[in-house]
């Protein structure tokens, strides 16, 4: 079965109990037991809830993993996975990582004794150089946020295996429709499901998917003990959102491509960052490991003043944080996704005051372009 079929037909499309064409929402915290010696499959909803389980099994299947875990947010998923590490452990992390991940690493996990080095992972040699005797994990995002930098996942996974490192990949921008890190040799896939997976800007959620059963058991232990789980209503909404993942991504990508082509021809635009551009660094690496360039692009505007006008005067793209929804969203990384990163750190990474990130939604690209045209050239 092709991906577009599998997201709809994955074993959960019919409720076995009533034959309903959908997963029931188990809005419940506890479950009756029939035996003292053998408990039923479910006992307490933090540990397992059938609605959440349907979602977890679905995401595991889509990422070609054996087990999936649904969390209250992307950050909860990341934090739960980071709790696998111990004091004294060192992590190598991609330098332009999402600001929230940067924040928990530098303000929380560092306090717990876990250290991190931020390197340019687009250069595999930089990864090698950063590895120390106590390095235990490699954390990647590709394409990264917001400059869409590309890291060679198979290559990085190879280096990680040599040094016995756990590879963690935040696959939010691509989704398993376009890129499957487990297939490329990585150990853990992470998602802010809030973005493309749920796709409607209406649920905050996160996921972790793995293939190795022992690793799955460890993450399951953390999920149950820490309890940063996703609720049943939210789980059901994400299941619903997933059904249109393929058509949404196809359409958004088409729109992104059109917007990118138009932006490249504008004088008021300095640089465009998009993995689909042949001139984009890592273009071939990305093409080898992903089925498409995605629907997120960034660009720098000629002046700060024009940047401000763009953010405030567009009528179709919403000026907001987040991405991956049905509506286009325009964001300002310096003050939003990467606000938690100190200014010097941001600027060194190219996250300047004229950089804007656009998540292309499902509006007709002609309308999006007309809107951009009006503000940039009007």
């Amino acid at each position, binding site marked *: 079965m092709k991906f577009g079929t599998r997201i709809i037909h994955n074993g959960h499309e019919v409720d076995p109990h009533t034959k309903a064409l959908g997963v029931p929402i188990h809005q419940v915290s506890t479950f009756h037991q029939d035996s003292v010696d053998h408990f039923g499959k479910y006992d307490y909803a933090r540990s397992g809830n059938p609605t959440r389980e349907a979602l977890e099994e679905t995401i595991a299947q889509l990422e070609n993993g054996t087990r999936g875990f649904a969390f*209250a947010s992307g950050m909860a998923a990341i934090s739960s996975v980071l709790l696998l590490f111990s004091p004294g452990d060192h992590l190598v992390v991609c330098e332009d990582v999402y600001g929230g991940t940067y924040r928990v690493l530098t303000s929380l996990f560092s306090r717990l004794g876990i250290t991190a080095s931020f390197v340019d992972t687009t250069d595999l040699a930089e990864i090698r150089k950063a590895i120390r005797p106590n390095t235990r994990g490699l954390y990647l995002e590709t394409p990264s946020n917001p400059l869409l930098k590309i890291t060679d996942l198979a290559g990085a996974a190879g280096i990680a295996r040599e040094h016995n490192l756990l590879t963690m990949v935040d696959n939010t921008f691509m989704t398993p429709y376009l890129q499957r890190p487990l297939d490329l040799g990585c150990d853990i896939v992470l998602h802010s499901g809030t973005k493309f997976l749920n796709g409607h800007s*209406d649920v905050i959620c996160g996921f972790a998917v793995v293939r190795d059963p022992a690793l799955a058991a460890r993450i399951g232990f953390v999920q149950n003990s820490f309890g940063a789980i996703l609720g049943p209503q939210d789980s059901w909404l994400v299941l619903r959102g997933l059904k249109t993942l393929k058509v949404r991504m196809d359409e958004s990508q088409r729109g992104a491509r059109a917007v990118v082509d138009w932006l490249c021809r504008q004088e008021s635009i300095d640089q465009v960052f998009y993995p689909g551009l042949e001139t984009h660094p890592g273009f071939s690496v990305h093409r080898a490991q992903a089925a498409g360039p995605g629907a997120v692009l960034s660009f720098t505007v000629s002046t700060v003043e024009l940047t401000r006008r763009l953010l405030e005067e567009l009528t179709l793209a919403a*000026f907001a944080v987040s991405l991956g929804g049905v509506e286009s969203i325009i964001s300002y990384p310096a003050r939003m996704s990467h606000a938690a990163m100190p200014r010097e750190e941001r600027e060194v990474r190219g996250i300047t005051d004229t950089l804007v990130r656009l998540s292309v939604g499902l509006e007709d690209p002609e309308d999006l372009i007309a809107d951009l045209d009006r503000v940039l050239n009007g």
Partner: protein
Amino acid sequence: MVKLSTQAVQLGLNWDGRTGAVTVPIYQTATFKHPGLGQSTGYDYSRSGNPTRKVLEDGIAALDGGVRGFAYSSGMAAITNLLLLFSKGDHLIVTEDLYGGTYRLFEQIFRQYDLSFTYVDTSVLSEVENAIRPETKGLFVESLTNPLLKAADVRGLSELCAARDILCIVDNTFLTPYLQRPLDLGADITIYSATKYLAGHNDTVSGLVVVKDPDLAEKVYFLQNSVGAVLGPQDSWLVIRGMKTLGIRLDRQQENAQKIAEWLAVHPKVRQVYYPGLPGHPGHALLAETARGFGAMVSFEVIDPLLVERLLLKTEIISFAESLGGVETLITFPEVQTHADILPEIRARLGINNLLLRLSVGIEDVDDLIGDLAQAFE
């Protein structure tokens, strides 16, 4: 100043000035538009703040007499967030007969981050005092313990803590602010598995924290936002809804519990009953003075292990299931359920043995409940 139960009934009542709706809308959204660059409506991303969750958070803060409230995806997530306030080398004193999930979190996750824990009978002030070391930074106490219902002298403990700069954290799940307000008695933080009495219908998993110091509130908020184990909007709304009937539910539950405890106390097949409402219970006088009631949890030891299975499986109205605090009466077997993660030798010393059952008394007619127990005993 209206009574607590009145406040609870009116949670969210006046929130929606625009439509006059008597309940707070469910803000099923992940993101919020910015009115302009550098401007915000007060909300930008639901992990950081959501209006529906805020009504719940403000509500519990008001009921508990605190300055700020926080809602989490589970009670365990709330506890985990609070533990993340501490640093390597910190020591905590903890109630010895506490919920097994808390014990598991402390011993199997936080101990590896160089936090240390001493478990004592927190109903005895001198035991707590003797356990204090120079590196003691926190006290984690259940105001009414699980499952032996020992009562903590929160005022006395808070005074001990305040004198030595120890953070006094009270898990007030079994009492709720309706029966006791730990912050009024000097505690720094109260924490709830809102899954239990607060939501009250065995239908959501959630955790709540209330703090009274603004600086501490900032630190707790930083963790809630960064780690992101937040409660979703649907679940938040359901907890708000549940809290509206907190007063009448607890009144009925306590009435029932008192009668059931008295009935069990003279039953020939019952060896011991633990219920603070019984004059012989160690915490009876303390709670009579510092709380507005004795709660609705009743634990009891039967005379023969064979009776355990009978009571768990033969009851028809009372359900054999984990959890507590909801409208349905539930019965559990702590040794193999809630306290399975506590070491056997510790369980044995505490009296959590193969004869001990825990009853969470609901709001059914008490004659039906007693009748159900009676027939199960036969």
